């Protein structure tokens, strides 16, 4: 059969058979940004397609991203999607038959399953070819595949496979035989046709038919399937008329590896898209927006409207109303979002969202949000507090700094860095000093940064930093809105409001305490 290089890849535009090394599932950023949870959810139930690795290969160039986005566009058309789902279902059945063919102990039964698999395969391929011709996909990926599929189905090799499979199945379906069961003895004869004896019996007693007869219907027994008795009966049938069974054997030998590897690869690759679209479908139905982002080479404008943390949305399934979408933007000289505000206000969530959007965009898939502009990246680095590490504070700080140094040493203008409260376990003075030094380095590197911190001073570091603040309800500072906006860092403003609320500002205390 044709080499799989014949069939283009649906995932990689240059048709590479081998893809780059996937990111390790243990990679820090992958877990910190909860991408591991997202991917696990999206690929659930599709283990047979082994999609996991592809979800761990972010693309580096915008054209590859565009290649995939075009396919997404095609698959968001209902009819095209339905046609491909049907194709996938047929191939699943084909695999089932092939497994049967491999496992069954009775040769004639196994070989029949094999031919049935072949017929299913041919029907699926021809249907898909017809549908793709009729529905005219727009993506480069699907168009190239459709063209190749057309040639494949018209090829001589395929024609032989398809017609032989049909003929054999037809021949087998025309066989009629008789089984005589007498005590323990079973005899297989050719069938000369003749009456259904049940008809004769019913006829004899026809005059005794009456109302209420339909009510008397004991359970019909199950067919016995393939076993050592029916297997021998089948052997008997084969001996009576060996022709079709010999052809069955020949077919199995001649077409032993009939599914074209390129088609099998398509079957797998298309699931990458289907899994994602099925995963985000329910979120879309409950009103959360997804979009195909505009992806350009870094460094470039980065922005998003109404985006959200997809792993959080998954956790809040059923309570989608509680999700608060947010916007972010880095334009012109801006390269660093400094996010401050009260605890549990949604800052870390925003940081994750920033990271997830970049990563998912690099997979060529639709991302959360109404619209987005993102850049590809050479590396995605995160620093989130790790609870499970060194217990003592000094050890923790050292550990933290080691990680930051590693990040800084590799950061380029094409990198994305996400820091989440990196100096939480030191004194304010130290944290500020360290923070300034690290910020200097980061600014020099030119990477795109999101830094969640309590160090409001960093928010105004230079023209490259943008201050974003997690808002609280003006009426009641204890209430978080989960909205994060660009504005001046408030420093202690929110703490003061809280103190007023509880009557523990100085003035109030003086009023309340005995003189």
């Amino acid at each position, binding site marked *: 059969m044709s080499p799989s290089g014949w069939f283009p890849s649906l995932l990689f535009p240059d048709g590479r058979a081998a893809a780059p090394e996937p990111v390790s599932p243990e990679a820090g950023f992958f877990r910190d940004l909860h991408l591991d949870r997202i991917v696990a959810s999206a690929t659930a139930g599709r283990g047979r397609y082994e999609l996991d690795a592809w979800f761990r290969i972010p693309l580096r160039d915008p054209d590859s991203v565009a290649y995939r986005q075009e396919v997404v566009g095609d698959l968001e058309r209902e009819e095209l999607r339905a046609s491909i789902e049907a194709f996938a279902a047929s191939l699943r059945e084909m695999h089932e038959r092939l497994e*049967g063919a491999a496992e*069954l102990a009775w040769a004639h*039964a196994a070989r*029949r399953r094999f031919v*049935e698999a072949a017929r299913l395969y041919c029907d699926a391929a021809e249907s898909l070819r017809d549908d793709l011709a009729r529905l005219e996909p727009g993506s480069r990926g699907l168009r190239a595949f459709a063209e190749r599929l057309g040639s494949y189905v018209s090829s001589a090799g395929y024609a032989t496979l398809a017609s032989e499979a049909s003929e054999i199945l037809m021949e*087998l*379906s025309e*066989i*009629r*035989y*008789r*089984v*005589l*069961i007498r*005590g*323990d*003895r*079973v*005899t*297989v*004869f*050719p*069938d*000369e*046709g*003749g*009456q*259904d*004896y*049940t008809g*004769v*019996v*019913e006829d*004899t*007693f026809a*005059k*005794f*038919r*009456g109302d209420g*007869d339909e009510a*008397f*219907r*004991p*359970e*019909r*027994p*199950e*067919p*016995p*399937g393939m*076993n*050592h*008795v*029916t297997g*021998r*009966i*089948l*052997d*008997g049938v084969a001996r*009576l008329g060996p022709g079709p069974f010999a052809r069955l054997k020949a077919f199995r030998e001649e077409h032993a590896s009939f599914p074209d590897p390129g088609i099998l690869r398509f079957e797998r690759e298309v699931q990458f898209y289907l899994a994602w679209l099925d995963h985000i479908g329910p979120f879309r139905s409950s009103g959360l927006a997804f979009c195909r982002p505009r992806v350009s080479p870094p460094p470039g404008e980065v922005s998003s409207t109404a985006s959200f943390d997809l792993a959080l949305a998954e956790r809040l399934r059923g309570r989608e109303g509680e999700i608060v979408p947010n916007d972010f933007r880095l334009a012109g000289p801006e390269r660093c979002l400094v996010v401050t505000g009260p605890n549990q206000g949604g800052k870390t969530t925003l940081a994750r969202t920033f990271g997830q959007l970049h990563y998912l965009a690099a997979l060529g898939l639709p991302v959360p949000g109404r619209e987005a502009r993102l850049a590809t990246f050479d590396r995605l680095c995160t620093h989130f507090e790790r609870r499970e590490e060194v217990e003592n504070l000094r050890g923790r700080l050292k550990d933290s700094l080691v990680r930051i140094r590693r990040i800084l040493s590799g950061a380029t203008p094409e990198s994305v860095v996400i820091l989440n409260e990196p100096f939480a376990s030191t004194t304010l003075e130290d944290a500020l000093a360290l923070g300034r030094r690290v910020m200097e380095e980061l600014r020099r590197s030119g990477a795109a940064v999101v830094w969640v911190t309590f160090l409001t001073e960093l928010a105004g570091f230079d023209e490259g930093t943008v201050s974003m603040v997690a808002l609280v309800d003006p009426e009641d500072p204890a209430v978080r809105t989960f909205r994060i906006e660009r504005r001046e860092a408030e420093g202690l403003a929110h703490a003061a409001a809280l103190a007023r609320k509880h009557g523990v500002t100085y003035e109030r205390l003086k009023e309340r305490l005995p003189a």
Partner: protein
Amino acid sequence: MRPHLLHRRRDLELERDLPPRASDVRADLELDAVVAAMADGDSFLSDVALRVLLAEPPDAETVRHRQGILQDGLAHPAAIREMYALAVEAVESRREHWWGMSSRHPSGLLHGAVSLLEALFGTLRKVRNLADDHAGDLTSAGLSRLVATLEAELSDDYLARVERELDRLSFGGGIELGARLGPGNEGVDYVLRAPREGGPGWKEWLFGGRPEGYAFEIDDEDLAGARILSDLRALGLYDAAVAVGRAARHVLGFFRALRGELGFYVGCINLRDALDAAGAPVCIPEAEERGSPTLAYRQLRDVSLALTRGAGVIGNDLEVARVRLGVVTGANEGGKSTFLRSLGLAHLMMGAGMFVAAESFRAGLPAGVFTHFAREEDAGMERGHFDEELARLSAIVDALEPGALILLNESFGSTNEREGSEIAAQVVRALHESGMRTFFVTHLYAFARHAFEDPPAGTLFLRAQREPDGTRTFRIVPGEPLETSFAQDVYREVFGGAAASATDG
């Protein structure tokens, strides 16, 4: 195929509930005595008799259908009794084969059904022969149709064919199934082929004419294999087993119906014999359309009294009249209750298609017979006596259809005469206007007198006859209501001498 001896186009349904108020009617008209005479010790006959008597009355054509069969039966009782006995024999034979019939496995079911059918067809043949023997005697539409059906459907050829088929259905020579190859080359579309043994060309086939076959055997110890073979057999036999099972049930159903319906006529014959022995007359009544107010009888008697006292029982007479309301007054123990019962029973028996204990009887078919008889005051009753009476009446009213016959015996007597009369007047008027036929035995003089002065259309006043010297004749004859009910006479009889003061009516 069904006997249809009670209804022209359907079976007698023995399992259905009795109509509402049936148990009251049974008690008040003392049906048990009648039923006992019909049953003559057979509890099945007693059940059938009760059900037919108490069932919703059929239409006039059905009554005539039954009367015809009854006349044949009365003229040729032996034929009916013999056929009934065969029906009983058939139904009993089910007991031996029921285990197979209720089997879940097609093989067991087939086996049970075949052996049951063999037994039933044996009896069918006897029934047909019996019918043949008596074909000339049985002239009623119902019975001659049954005879013709039996002759047509159970010809000798057919019976032979059935015998042959039942024999082949034991599959002594093994089971042969035709099949195709389905998915995975598993056998599908199993079709049962006719068994060869005993069939045409069997010997030739057995001894050499067989086409080339491939044979193998299951090991003795191969239990799984044996089970698989049994499953294959079951699969192949399934449809045939269902067909034979249904046939067996239906033939059994035929015999059940025959037993029930003939049982009724056997009961009638028994009752006629008993009444004959007691010297009481019977006649086939003239049944008019439902709701007709016609009433006429000669020597009408109460059946249970006739059975016990025989010829000594008084019969009542009435010239043809249109009666929608009958008011019966008169002396205590003058035969009023007995009369009411005899009237009720006569209507009930006429409605069932039976004869009536009289020399002649003519009336409209009732749309149901209902009784409202005074009950003993019961200390343990939750309700007051009058309350209970009225509740019972209300329940009857729920069940009434126009043309129904209602027998009121001393109703509303549990309150004072003024109240009782007032209520009685309203009830009776309402019933009359709704097309019911009412007979009221009563001591409520005010009511009776008022009704006499201004009677509704079709009212008949009857009185327990009394000789001038006070003796009762136990006859109920036309007469206007009189004030006293001759309690004086009874008092004299019991205590000797006149009462010290007039007693209340």
